[in-house]
């Protein structure tokens, strides 16, 4: 309750369209202080967990963990999950959930690598493949959004249906084969790097930054938190709750399309097996990052930290040659530990 009280007072402010640009314009120092003050409290636990992980990594694997190359490997692996997690944060903040992200990624990757799409891409430009993936992802998101917002189907069910049918459609289109991306320039572009930083990581950074601005600095973001926190109050405050909800799913769909492109570049393939269990990874990352599953609260920084913790964990384990079963046990323990730590810190900060 104590968490939600200040939010309700924010809602009317969010609905005043004029307030948003003004706030964005003069947000230089206040953004930083808010970043450190507001979300950092909640995220401190995560940062500590990540630091501990890095210390363990350095202590056990030394230079192999600490090298610049390894850092890039971790970031590159985090990028795909990260992009979808940012989108997932929006949907969960808005009081929804999307179980179909993995299936949408699979369908987008398959659709964008069919013979027809690839032939067209060869004739025009590989951007055709990117647009196809985004279009398919966005369309799936739109269907989810319409079903949830206007069809009044529970998000869990609507997206569960999409999970099944999107992966099924992907299998039908690909005939359960792995479709190889033939366009070298596509792979060279997304697989390459700019001043030493992989393009995939740059995309992740841009998406995270845009997500942060969108959630914290725009009316869109405030509306999202408002409809997730208290949809009835949001409606009374004049927010078109249905439309906003639909937008959120489309946004996540687009993120899935982008993730599909990134996955295509990384694996050089499009296949119906892409994105398996991605929904769990992304929801876990968002929740560990402090996003409230019931909606109304969430931070992009937390989500990004959540993704990084998972990826770093796997990396440290692999460097130490730990077998998969042990990894899974440790992962479970660390997830709970991170959340507990985070709650303790948040509670202490609130009481002082």
């Amino acid at each position, binding site marked *: 309750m104590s968490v939600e009280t200040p939010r309700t007072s924010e809602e009317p402010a969010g609905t005043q369209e004029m307030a948003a640009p003004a706030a964005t314009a003069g947000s230089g120092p206040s953004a930083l202080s808010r970043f450190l003050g507001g979300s950092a409290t909640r995220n401190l636990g995560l940062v500590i967990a990540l630091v501990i992980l890095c210390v363990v990594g350095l202590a056990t694997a030394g230079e*192999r963990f600490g090298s610049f190359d390894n850092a890039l490997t971790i970031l590159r692996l985090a990028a795909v999950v990260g992009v979808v997690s940012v989108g997932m944060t929006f949907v969960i903040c808005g009081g929804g959930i999307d179980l179909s992200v993995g299936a949408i990624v699979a369908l987008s990757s398959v659709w964008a690598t069919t013979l027809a799409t690839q032939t067209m891409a060869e004739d025009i430009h590989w951007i055709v493949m990117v647009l196809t993936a985004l279009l398919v992802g966005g369309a799936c998101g739109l269907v989810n959004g319409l079903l949830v917002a206007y069809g009044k189907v529970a998000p869990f069910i609507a997206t569960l249906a999409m999970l099944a049918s999107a992966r099924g459609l992907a299998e039908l289109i690909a005939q*359960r084969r792995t479709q190889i991306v033939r366009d070298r320039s596509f792979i060279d572009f997304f697989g390459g790097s700019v001043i030493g930083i992989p393009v995939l990581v740059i995309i992740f950074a841009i998406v995270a930054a845009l997500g942060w601005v969108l959630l914290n600095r725009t009316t869109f973001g405030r509306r999202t938190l408002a409809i997730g926190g208290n949809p009835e109050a949001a409606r009374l405050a004049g927010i078109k709750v249905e439309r906003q909800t639909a937008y959120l799913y489309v946004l996540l769909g687009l993120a899935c399309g982008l993730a599909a492109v990134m996955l295509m570049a*990384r694996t050089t393939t499009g296949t119906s097996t892409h994105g398996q269990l991605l929904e769990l990874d992304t929801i876990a990352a968002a929740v560990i990052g402090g996003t409230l599953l019931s909606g109304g609260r969430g931070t992009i920084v937390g989500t990004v930290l959540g993704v990084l913790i998972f990826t770093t964990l796997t990396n440290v384990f*692999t460097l130490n040659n730990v077998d*998969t079963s042990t990894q899974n046990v440790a992962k479970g323990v660390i997830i709970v530990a991170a959340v507990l730590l985070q709650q303790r810190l948040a509670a202490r900060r609130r009481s002082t």
Partner: protein
Amino acid sequence: MIRRTISRPVRAAAALGVVALVAAGCTSNTPEAADTTSSDSQRAGSSNDDPGDKVTIGFSGPAADHGWLGAINSAAQAEAKKFSDVEFKAAEGTNDASQQIAQVETFINDKVDAIVLLPTDGAALTEVATKAMNAGIIVVNVDREFSTPFAARTTILGDNYGMGVSAGTYACKLVKDKNLTNPVIAEIAGIDALPLTQDRSKGFADALKGCNQTVDNRVAAEFTVESGEKVASNLLQAAPKIDIIWNHDDDQGVGVMAAFDNAKRNEFAFIGGAGSANAMRWIKEGKMEATVLYPPTQAADGVRLARLLAQDKSMSDLVQVAVPRRIVLDAPVVTKDNVEEYLPLGFES
């Protein structure tokens, strides 16, 4: 009170079920015994492919979400089509053990002559396969073994342990040929929880022992391209220099190869597993050292054997009257030297 009223009908039903099972068992054995005596005339070697009694064969396997499994299914279909005397009923592939149990139960109700079963999980399907056997239906177990020998008339398996041995032996040969001292050997396994993965790894380790080597780095993927890329990326970080890598599965191998390319690493000899068409093309191009075959034609062989069993014929190249109980297929190594010969067997993934 309430508990008693419920338990009585349950107990009655259970008793009835047992009676029914026993009864089914009794009736089912009679025709089988009768047929065996009359089958001697059909034992002649090459006439096996000639049309015989009409037989209905049910086929159930895991969802073909994987190139190798796709090849398994299509090869089984194709084989069944070759015989005019076979009516082939293929159930929709599923990865859900309880759904597959339901499919087998449907086959039992339909009174098919034989069931070719590639279980999602051998142990989980043992019970229902035993039920089918008791109902007088010939069960041919493919690839993933049941937990009891009574659940199948014949079991046909790829050799997972042998696959590991073949890969390990080949790795040892490389160590010797290249004169490597203290080589770094890495292994990229498939789904670690599956017995087949454990068998492959054990075979690999055992063969490596033969040349005093061990696996230095081991990671496990999930048979998908994405997971292959993921674990291989981390593996390359874990070991700055690798001499030999064995990857259990060529489907995930596409991702593994992508990870190699992304990291611009190719200092090692890359050995694959399963034998996809992609892998064979890489071998031809010199991007891959070798791959260990795991035949995708097992279910097709299963269909053939089921037909023979249902028609009471035997295998033409054996003196033995009956079809063997257990057949383990070979796991040969495909290299640049013999790739042309194996290319037709390579499955598109």
